[in-house]
C-alpha cells in the first residue's frame, strides 16, 4: 500500500529545536542567582529522592534524651520537642512536599492543557461555554477551593493537593488557550490539515508540541505555588497529619517553641523559603528564555 501522507516531500511536522540548544541558551544567559538556584534545587530534589544521604536518623524516631537540643555535630539542625532529628524531618519533609506538589501540578497541567487546547482549537460555542465556566472557577482565589474540598473530604495532603491542582487548572487553561490561538493558524497546521490529518492528530502532533514551552513555564511556576499551598494547608492543620514529616506542619508545631528554641522553626523555614525562592527564580528565567510574551509583570 502506498502511504500518501508520509511519502510526500512536504513534511507537516514542525521543525524541532534540539534540546541542547535550549540548555545552551540557558547557560549563556543564566545569571549567578539562577545558576545557584538550579544547583540548590538539584540538591533538594536529590534529598527528596534519597533522604538517607542527608541523614542517618529516622524522621519519626523519638529520643527522650535529646529533647529540644540545639544544633550540634550530632544533630546539625537540632532536635524538636520529641527529640526527633530536625534535619531528618526536613529531608523526609522534602520528599513529602515535593512529591505531593507533583500530583497537584500533574492534575493542573493535564486539565489545563486538554481544556486550553480543545477550546482554543474548536472555538465557537464550545469555547464560549467552557471559558465562562473557567471564569466562575477563577472567582475563587488562592486556597479557597482547597478549603471546600477539605471540609467535605476531611484533612489530608492527598485531598489538599487534588484540590490545589483543580484550583490551578482554570488559570492554566486560559493561558494554554491563548497559546493555541496563536499557533492554530500557522502554515504547518494548515499543511497538516491539507494532507488529511484529523483534528485530534493536529492537536496532539502539532499544537501541543508548539505550545509546550508555555506549558513548561506554567508547570514550573505552578509547581512552586503547589508546594507553597500544600505547606500552607499543613500549617493550618488541614494537610499532612502528625507524625508525618512535612515542612508546613513542622513550622506549625515550631510556633510554640519560638521564644526559647529558635532552631525548631527557623531552619525548616529557611529550607522551605529557599526552595520556593529558587523555583521562582528558575521559573522567571525559563519564561524569559522560552517565551518573553508570558511576562505578566
Amino acid at each position, binding site marked *: 500500500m502506498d502511504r500518501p501522507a508520509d511519502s510526500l516531500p512536504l513534511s507537516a511536522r514542525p521543525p524541532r529545536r534540539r534540546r541542547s540548544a535550549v540548555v545552551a541558551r540557558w547557560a549563556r544567559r543564566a545569571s549567578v542567582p539562577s545558576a545557584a538556584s538550579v544547583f540548590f534545587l538539584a540538591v533538594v530534589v536529590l534529598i527528596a529522592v534519597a533522604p538517607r544521604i542527608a541523614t542517618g536518623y529516622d524522621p519519626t524516631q523519638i529520643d527522650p534524651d535529646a529533647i529540644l537540643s540545639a544544633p550540634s555535630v550530632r544533630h546539625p539542625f537540632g532536635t524538636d520537642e520529641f527529640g526527633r532529628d530536625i534535619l531528618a524531618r526536613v529531608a523526609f519533609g522534602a520528599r513529602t512536599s515535593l512529591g505531593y506538589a507533583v500530583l497537584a501540578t500533574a492534575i493542573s497541567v493535564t486539565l489545563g492543557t486538554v481544556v486550553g487546547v480543545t477550546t482554543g482549537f474548536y472555538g465557537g460555542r464550545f469555547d464560549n461555554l467552557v471559558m465562562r465556566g473557567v471564569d466562575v472557577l477563577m472567582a475563587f482565589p488562592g*486556597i479557597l477551593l482547597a478549603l471546600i474540598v477539605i471540609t*467535605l473530604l476531611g484533612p489530608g495532603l492527598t485531598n489538599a493537593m487534588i484540590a490545589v491542582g483543580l484550583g490551578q487548572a482554570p488559570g492554566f487553561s486560559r493561558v494554554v488557550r491563548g497559546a493555541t490561538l496563536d499557533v492554530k493558524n500557522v502554515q504547518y497546521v494548515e499543511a497538516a490539515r491539507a494532507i488529511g490529518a484529523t483534528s485530534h492528530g493536529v492537536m496532539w502532533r502539532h499544537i501541543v508540541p508548539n505550545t509546550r514551552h508555555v506549558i513548561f513555564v506554567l508547570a514550573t511556576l505552578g509547581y512552586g505555588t503547589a508546594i507553597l499551598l500544600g505547606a500552607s494547608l499543613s500549617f493550618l492543620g488541614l494537610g499532612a497529619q502528625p507524625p508525618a514529616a512535612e515542612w508546613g506542619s513542622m513550622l506549625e508545631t515550631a510556633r510554640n517553641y519560638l521564644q526559647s528554641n529558635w532552631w525548631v522553626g527557623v531552619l525548616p523555614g529557611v529550607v522551605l523559603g529557599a526552595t520556593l525562592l529558587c523555583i521562582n527564580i528558575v521559573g522567571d528565567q525559563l519564561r524569559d528564555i522560552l517565551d518573553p510574551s508570558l511576562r505578566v509583570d
Partner: protein
Amino acid sequence: MASYIAYRVGYSALVALGVLVLVSLMIHLVPGDPAELMVGDAPVSAAQMQAIRHSLGLDRPLLVQLARDAARFVRGDLGRSLRSGRPVSDYLRRALPSTLVLAAAAMAFGVLLGAPAGVLAAVYRGSWLDSVTTGFAVVGISLPSFWTGILFIVLFSVRLGWFPASGQGGWRALVLPAVTLGWFPAGAIARLLRSAMLEVLRKDYVGVARAKGLREPAVIVRHALRNALLPTVTLAMVQFGALLSGAIIVETVFGRDGLGRLVVDGILQRDFPIVQGVVLLIALMYTLANLSSDLLCAWIDPRIHYR
C-alpha cells in the same frame, strides 16, 4: 462607556450567579453521603441524622435543592451553623470588618512600599537600588506568609518587644499582621511597575517632555508614571481579592479574629454552612474587586471600552 459598564456589570452578575450555583453544588460533588461526611465519627442517633439531612435540604431532589439554595443565598440567608444553630450571616458580619481592616492595611503597606520602589528601580535601572528592589520583590513574592509572620513575631515582639505578638486590639497589634500580608503585594507591585515604567520611559512622548525642558521629576511623575499606572491598578485590585484569601493564614499565625479564624475553625469542626458562607463571601468580594478594576481601567484609559 455606558454600554461597556452595562456589559461588565452584567457579566460579573453572571459569574456571581455561577459562583452561587457552584457553592451550593459543592456539597453534592463529593462521593458519599454529605451528612455522614460532616458528622464524621461523632455519635449521632438516626433521628439526629435525619434532622441534619433535613436542615441541609438533602432529602429533596437535587435540582430543587440547587434552586432553593441559590435563591436562599441571593436573599442573604446562608443557613445556620451546625454546631451553634446561629445564622451564618451573624458570624460573617462579626468577622468581616476585622479581615477588611487587615486587608486594607496590608494593601496600603504594599502600595506605599511597592510603588516607589518600582519607580525608583526603573529610573535607576542597573544600579544597586535596582538590584536591591528586584531582589526584595522576588523574596517577598516567594516566602510563605506563615513563616515571615513567625520571624516577625520572634524579632519584633519576643526580642525587641515593639509590637504585640497577638493581632487583636489597637493599631499596634495591626502592624505585624499587615506587614506580613502586605509583603506579597509590595513585591508584585514593585516588579510590575518597574517593567511598566521601563517600557514607558522608552516612549517618544517621554523624550518630548525632556526635550521641552521639563525637570526630571515632572517627566517621571506626570508623563511616565501616569502611563505606567494602568497595569498596576489592575494588579492592585486583583491582589486585594487575593489578600482576603491570604488573610486566612495570617490571621491564624497572629491569632487574630476574622474570616480566616472562622473558616479554619469551621473546617476543623466540620461545620459546612460556615465554610460555605466564608467561601461565598470571599469569592463574591473577589468578583467585585475584579469588576471595579475593569471599570477603573476603562475610566483611566478610554481606549479600553472602544475595543
